């Protein structure tokens, strides 16, 4: 009888705390969002299914999209040039619907490592990579990435030699950024799809490197 047990200090049978139900009043902005959405639907400007479809479209975006762009740049020098010149156009060329996003790709080399942050809020290339990781939006990451990037990278397990230059990019206004990581050694025989599997989300933010084959 799975429910025939006592409450163990508020812990579930698996020993974890129960998650509290969200029986709390709506915040001001939650109320405003619901009011605006319902008005737009009632007045026939949008439909509920269009709202759901838009949420689905955003949830369908993932780091795999960016990984495909990176892998293409690794195997196609002309594409790499186009990506560095205009990352929005290059992403669209590969068939990704990134909307109106203005994207800049910054390239890691033997001398340079790039790191992306948004100190003012949580600007992130969502239209290519999907939603950002929670830590990207924390005050700790946002404030420390510009002040002590090497200490931050160390905590991510990435220790860069002193002779490498770190370039931090603060997404303060209308542009979004994606890191073009350096292609790992020992990957000459790999296909574009195999290469894409090496490209992690963090390697496109700059807090990591691609996987080794």
């Amino acid at each position, binding site marked *: 009888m799975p429910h025939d047990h006592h409450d163990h200090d508020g812990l579930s049978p698996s020993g974890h705390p129960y998650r509290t139900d969200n029986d709390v009043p709506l915040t001001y902005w939650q109320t405003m969002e619901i009011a605006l959405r319902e008005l737009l639907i009632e007045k026939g400007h949008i439909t509920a299914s269009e709202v759901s479809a838009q949420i689905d479209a955003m949830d369908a975006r993932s780091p795999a999209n960016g990984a495909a762009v990176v892998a293409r740049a690794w195997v196609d020098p002309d594409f790499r040039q186009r990506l560095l010149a205009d990352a929005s156009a290059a992403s669209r060329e590969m068939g990704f619907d990134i909307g109106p996003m*203005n994207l800049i790709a910054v390239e890691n080399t033997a001398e340079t490592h790039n790191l992306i942050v948004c100190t003012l809020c949580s600007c992130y290339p969502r239209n290519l990579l999907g939603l950002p990781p929670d830590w990207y939006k924390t005050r700790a990451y946002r404030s420390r990435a*510009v*002040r*002590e990037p090497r*200490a931050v990278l160390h905590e991510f397990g990435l220790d860069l030699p002193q002779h490498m230059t770190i370039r*931090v*990019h603060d997404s*303060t*206004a209308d542009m979004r950024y994606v890191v073009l990581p350096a292609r790992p050694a020992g990957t000459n025989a790999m296909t574009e799809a195999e290469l894409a599997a090496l490209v992690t989300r963090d390697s496109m933010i700059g807090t990591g490197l691609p996987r080794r084959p």
Partner: protein
Amino acid sequence: MAERVRVKTMMPPGHVRAPAYLRGKSGVIERTLGSFKNPEKLAYGLPAEERPLYRVRFTMAELWGADAEIPDDTLDAEIYGHWLEQEPSHAS
């Protein structure tokens, strides 16, 4: 040679996209980005004129002085033209 600029030290109230930690700091224009609607107006639903936007590159030494991990590491940020002033030249 890249143009040297300084972020103005003004502290207006309201929504601005020039981070406080860069105000008064000098850097070089890394690239021009074209013109975008002024976010200081857009944030309030006001008619927004287009303003030129620049990517400005600062050294960590300029931002943090002796506390910089590596002085020559850099920080790039997008700064609107009305937040930039020409840095007076110190070269003789």
